[in-house]
């Protein structure tokens, strides 16, 4: 016989404590900090239709101040940012994009009706972070096509990029079948393709003399 069976109140107290712990546990149960807002299927749709892409020539309006609702975020590291960046861009390295402070800021920007344009070294660099933000439901986050490298090349004539298509990705540059099947005759290499390094030695002017 257990001791507490002699004391019905004790069992009651145990029962109440038990219930309280379970209820408190359920109420304070927290989910992950960030949740996906888009399903994988929706994400596929997003990337197939090329939504959220900012063309390099659209930057011109941002840079000359006629559009002030767009923020530029440079996701490269601080070192690369210091060496050069798009004027007015903020440096938020890729590793810091999901910090609680930054997420809070991003939500505030969304409320204020501001848009964010991410750019990295090239479009590929910003592709992952951009896709992740979109999947988390931050649909005011966009990506700069071409990235910083392309911007550098065209910075003085951004408007002209309207007629350029180098930054358009996801297209074949070659007719693969033709390239691969035309059995390229590889000509025999002439020997000595590598330049030989000739070391010029300074002539000794003084004849070696005996003794030190």
């Amino acid at each position: 016989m257990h001791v507490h069976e002699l004391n019905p109140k004790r069992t009651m107290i145990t029962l109440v404590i038990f219930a309280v712990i379970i209820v408190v546990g359920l109420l304070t149960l927290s989910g992950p900090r960030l949740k996906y807002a888009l399903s994988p299927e929706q994400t596929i749709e997003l990337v197939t239709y090329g939504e959220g892409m900012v063309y390099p020539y659209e930057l011109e309006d941002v840079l000359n101040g006629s559009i002030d609702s767009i923020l530029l975020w440079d996701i490269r590291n601080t070192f690369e940012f210091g060496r050069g960046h798009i004027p007015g861009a903020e440096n938020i390295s890729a590793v810091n994009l999901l910090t609680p402070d930054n997420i809070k800021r991003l939500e505030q920007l969304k409320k204020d009706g501001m848009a964010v344009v991410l750019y990295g070294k090239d479009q590929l660099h910003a592709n992952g972070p951009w896709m992740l933000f979109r999947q988390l439901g931050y649909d005011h986050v966009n990506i700069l096509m071409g990235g910083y490298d392309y911007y550098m090349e065209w910075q003085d004539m951004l408007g002209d990029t309207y007629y350029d298509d180098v930054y358009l990705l996801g297209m074949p540059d070659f007719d693969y079948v033709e390239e691969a099947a035309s059995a390229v005759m590889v000509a025999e290499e002439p020997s000595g393709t590598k330049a030989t390094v000739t070391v010029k030695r300074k002539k000794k002017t003084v004849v070696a003399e005996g003794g030190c």
Partner: protein
Amino acid sequence: MNKNYIYLTLLLIVLAGGLFLLPEKENHQHLDPEDLMWSIVQPTRYVSTDQVAKRIIEGDPTLELIDVRTIDEFEEFSLQGAINIPIDSIMVPEYQDYLGIEDMSAVFYSDDDIKADQAWVLAKRLGYDHIYVMKGGLNCWIRTIIKPERPASTAAESEFELYSFRRGASMYFTGAEIAIPDDESKQKVQVARKKKTVVAEGGC
């Protein structure tokens, strides 16, 4: 028996029943966004066309090439041994069977690397490991492996080694033969022998 035990039991049963009412979590099998970001910032997912070429030539059994372009594009041209998973079909269970194979490393490729990278982000979110992206895609494949460019004569020795590998790979993949001009091929090899200057003398 104390009645309180019955209450306790009932309470636990009711609470356990409450589990059925919890909303079904859609994300539970997906990678946590923070972990996904952590994987995204690592450049280790990129493999070069040279690495892929080398593994195809060596017949690496763990290599699984995955073409994320459309079916038409895949049927027109694909890399040796590649499987086609169009990016919009990545959620189809039959296709996903190709992704979770143990000990295999799946390398995504497309025309360049954007589409492949997008497929990678999706697959990573779905929780697949050992997945990679071929940097530069097929455009880079043609440029480096099929039509390699000869390095400048002042380039480093390692670049010549790479060039020689790529020429070999080009021949392997295109089935091209080395064209040797006729006159050169028939050149006779002349062995210059050193003349003996001293007539052999007897004794040691």
